[in-house]
């Protein structure tokens, strides 16, 4: 099996195909700390792409409550034990096995096929926190228990397990932007991809009898716009853009900046070995052991960097770009008290102030002879 380099795990690994990075890689940063689980993203995606037959319980975008929630049920709890011991050495190199390396004989990927019931409860465990909160308890500065919201889409992985497992080569990764797609004319519904994707982000449509997955809203991306889940995010937790190939990293590319320079956003379960391209800013109040398991060994540094954003104008500027415009931001610059975002031609597409201007109006509107309910 060919060897490819996976920078998330700091080493080469086995993958059924040779390394072939796209010209640029579609990528997202999600700031978990800001998600309010309003599910606006989920509904935006659902009405856009999965309102048809056989898609009734299919959510390309879902938001689940961790630690107990998961869609399909127990997806991560089911795959994690299959990998065996997951150890990182002191140089942040993963010493355990990926889903490719731990595949049983005769399989390309170590996976499992969920049952139909696993998809039947889209938000099981919603808002459940780790402990029972006593009656009368109130917030005293430290949370007594924890939970957080994990928004999930397909990671358009650099080393997709779905693609690796498809015996028909019906799944492909676009050279121009790294989007991973299932060819709906070639797929024959074997479900090898559904079984293989450890994130369970390829779905089987029992009416078309083919597998379907997130298409990264490529019709929007092709006209320079961010996907629907990003555009509609109420908590402004999302930023979509392109990661540059390793040799062409640019500091003024907000995705490169957050992921490669600041390392404030981390891949979900890097130990799976897929080099997933949705990067998460870890939730700051969650016990570190849980976060190490979920986001790898760089969690402490990421949280420290995130906490220092108020003193780092460039970082704060980049974070202010989240869900600030429909357009894809290819580069950004902080000037004075504003951060500017530019498209691929260098045209300004957004200007965000560091401090929202505050206007206070008099309580009484003399012209209309009424009292105002809101004065700011």
């Amino acid at each position: 099996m060919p060897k490819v380099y996976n920078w998330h795990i700091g080493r080469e690994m086995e993958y059924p195909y040779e390394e072939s990075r796209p010209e640029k890689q579609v990528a997202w940063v999600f700031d978990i700390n800001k998600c309010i689980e309003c599910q606006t993203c989920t509904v935006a995606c659902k009405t856009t792409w999965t309102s048809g037959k056989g898609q009734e319980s299919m959510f390309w975008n879902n938001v689940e409550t961790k630690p107990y929630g998961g869609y399909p049920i127990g997806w991560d709890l089911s795959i994690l034990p299959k990998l065996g011991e997951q150890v990182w050495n002191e140089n942040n190199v993963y010493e355990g096995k990926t889903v490719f390396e731990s595949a049983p004989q005769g399989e390309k990927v170590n996976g499992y096929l969920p049952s139909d019931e696993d998809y039947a409860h889209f938000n099981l465990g919603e808002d459940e926190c780790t402990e029972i909160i006593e009656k009368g308890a109130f917030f005293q500065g430290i949370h007594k228990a924890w939970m957080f919201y994990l928004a999930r889409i397909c990671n358009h992985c650099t080393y997709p397990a779905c693609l690796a497992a498809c015996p028909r080569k019906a799944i492909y990764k676009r050279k121009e932007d790294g989007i991973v797609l299932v060819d709906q004319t070639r797929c024959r519904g074997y479900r090898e991809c559904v079984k293989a994707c450890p994130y369970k982000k390829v779905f089987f449509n029992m009416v078309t009898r083919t597998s379907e997955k997130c298409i990264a809203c490529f019709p929007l991306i092709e006209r320079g716009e961010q996907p629907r889940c990003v555009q509609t995010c109420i908590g402004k937790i999302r930023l979509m853009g392109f990661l540059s190939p390793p040799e062409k990293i640019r500091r003024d590319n907000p995705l490169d900046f957050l992921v490669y320079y600041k390392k404030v956003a981390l891949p979900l379960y890097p130990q799976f070995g897929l080099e997933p391209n949705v990067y998460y800013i870890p939730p700051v109040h969650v016990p570190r052991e849980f976060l190490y398991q979920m986001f790898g060994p760089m969690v402490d540094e990421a949280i420290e960097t995130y906490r220092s954003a108020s003193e780092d104008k460039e970082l704060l500027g980049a974070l202010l770009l989240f869900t600030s415009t429909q357009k894809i931001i290819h580069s950004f610059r902080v000037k004075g008290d504003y951060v500017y975002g530019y498209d691929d031609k260098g045209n300004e597409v957004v200007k965000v102030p560091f401090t929202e201007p505050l206007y206070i109006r008099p309580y009484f509107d003399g012209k209309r002879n009424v009292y105002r309910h809101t004065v700011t």
Partner: protein
Amino acid sequence: MSKGFVLPFIGTLLGMLVSCGKAEEKPIEGFSQEIIAIRVSDTIPLTNPDAKVWQEAPAVLIELKPQNMIPPIIQDAVIKQLTVRAIYNDDYFGMLLEWEDPTKDDIINVDKFTDQVAIQFPITPENPGSFMMGNKGAPVHIIHWKAIWQRDIEQGYLDIQDLYPNMWVDLYYFKKQPIYSEFTEEGVKMPRVEEFSPEQNDYNPAIKMRNPVSLIERQIPVEEAFAEGFGTFTTQLHQDAFAWGKYEDGRWRVIFVRPMVSPDSRDAPLPAETMVAFAVWDGSANQVGGRKQYTPWIPLKLQ
């Protein structure tokens, strides 16, 4: 003659028909290494495995092996043998395949797979190539039957409400007009996918693009394909073959019929001596694609 008399009489007659018509296992020593097709003067039955004409051909027992060479694999064969009869006349060639399978799997769902069987002929019999779906320069002709396809034809295209009879969806949302579910006197009426216009299948690109596995208006439960190696299975433009299965007493009996001479260059010729190979899938063992029981090439002689 009273009715009471007629019924047992018909019953006995039916019993006789069934018992003499059923393909009886002739005692066979082990597995056969070749298949002899017998020339018959009758027509080849399309759907009736109990037709007498099948008795004219010897039943040969073929060993099935687990596909454990090319991932994804199965470790062990759950279906271990196949009984084959072959007949032909001037126009058509027919095969009756039988195997034991305790469960009839004729639906597909996220975690449910269908029973299937396929036969394969070399397009160049003098150089048959790999029995695993041929190879470059040695293509193969595959005729593939699936239980789900036959169910689609017999009972209508399997839809979500067939899998979940108590389900409810308010509406399927479309650009021009949403399609609503209704409460009627007979109960809940959910729209069926057959009623959707092509535009309303925007959400189902596989149906809209006429993917051969997503055909809602399927007419025959079989698909003819061309292949030149693993992963190259391609549906043929011309569908000239037919197949029909019958499940009874824990046993599938599937008839395949194809023309002796086909104008389609992607259909294999049928000279006096050629090869044939088989593949069988058990749905309840989650078998699909390469996860199957197979046979290598077996000589096929038309007598």
